[in-house]
């Protein structure tokens, strides 16, 4: 797909309405990929979110599919006590759900320095969308507990200029293309001085820690963040 799909060429639309669950696939015991029917008028830019609503509960999910793909894929962590994810994990295909979007400003800007994507857990979703839309040559530090939880690695690694999985609970021997530790450790130890644009997606604690490292090591860098609550 042309780079234009990453920018404002395909201008997002405001949509609110009902969609349907098409399929669900568990990628790990507590993480699943949900595919939803994409409403005809729903246009988005890679990095944006879809908001789902059920019984007065709103949840935003980064869209993992590219703008050119027919469905809307979401990468969802199951929180057993949550109000939305257990229902999504159990709803039958064909079930309708209310939604709106796209939301958010976590957009890829190819005009800057070398992009460094930093993803923790399901925070890799927007980067899959950006890669599906043509982003390439980026550095990707992908954090997970085990190698099996490096979601979308097979799609992302070939498109990356440099890929490093950061595993916190994988036992030796260390899998190829990975290191022990958090993505924060990779930012601190595995990135040489240079001109970078950082894109951070994950839990707020990861974003906070990553910003501390980036402000200290790369004070002139641009930083784009998308924090999960």
């Amino acid at each position, binding site marked *: 797909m042309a780079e234009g799909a990453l*920018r404002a060429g395909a201008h997002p639309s405001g949509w609110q309405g009902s969609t349907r669950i098409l399929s669900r696939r568990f990628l790990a015991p507590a993480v699943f990929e949900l595919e939803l029917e994409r409403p005809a008028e729903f246009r988005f830019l890679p990095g944006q979110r879809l908001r789902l609503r059920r019984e007065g509960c709103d949840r935003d999910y980064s869209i993992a599919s590219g703008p050119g793909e027919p469905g809307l894929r979401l990468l969802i962590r199951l929180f057993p006590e949550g109000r939305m994810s257990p229902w999504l994990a159990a709803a039958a295909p064909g079930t309708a759900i209310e939604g709106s979007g796209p939301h958010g400003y976590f957009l890829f800007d190819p005009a800057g320095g070398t992009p460094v994507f930093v993803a923790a857990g399901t925070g890799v979703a927007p980067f899959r969308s950006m890669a599906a839309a043509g982003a390439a040559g980026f550095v990707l530090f992908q954090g997970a507990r085990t190698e099996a939880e490096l979601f979308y690695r097979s799609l992302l690694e070939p498109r990356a200029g440099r890929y490093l999985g950061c595993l916190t609970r994988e036992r030796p021997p260390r899998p190829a293309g990975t290191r022990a530790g958090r993505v924060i450790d990779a930012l601190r130890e595995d990135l040489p001085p240079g001109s970078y644009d950082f894109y951070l997606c994950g839990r707020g604690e990861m974003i906070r820690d990553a*910003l501390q490292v980036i402000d200290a090591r790369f004070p002139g860098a*641009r930083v784009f963040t998308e924090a999960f609550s």
Partner: protein
Amino acid sequence: MKISTGSGDGGRTSLFSGERVRKDDLRLEAQGDLDELNAVIGCLAASLPAAAAALKPELGAVQADLFPIGAWLSLGGPSPAAALLPPLDAGRTARLEEAITRMERALPELRSFVLPGGGIAAGWAHLARTVCRRTERRVVRLFDARTEDPPPALLEAVRYLNRLSDYFFLLARTLNRIEGVEETPWRKEP
């Protein structure tokens, strides 16, 4: 929406454009003034006398207008996010101008300066006016700091803020009239 992430604990924050800036950056100062203005309008709306309750939706619309202005202020340099921001078109300013004309027609002509104050609501309106003027001055200073021409949205923001302070001045006078509070003319000698 999570309010506290702790990501700004180091005294820096990110603009829409990704630029990391100190929290005393001029763009954030302008946003802070805008935020203060919006809070003052909230106090003004809360203090409206029952006879002026019809003005509440108008103030709510002004509060809503300040959000996209804040977004444009935080844009920083060129950014794909600009395509997603609500446009700042002349329609918002025209709406203010209509309200200004409506109030001007209903008020007696001013023949001297008046002391800011009167009723509580009018006092809040005067405070909103002064915070609005400070916000406008700060946004204008942003133009000097930019290396490129300001985007049309920012130029429209300045027009809007300029009208808005006039609006608050007339609103203060209108509220005093509604509440039957005499305006106090300024005199050289007390």
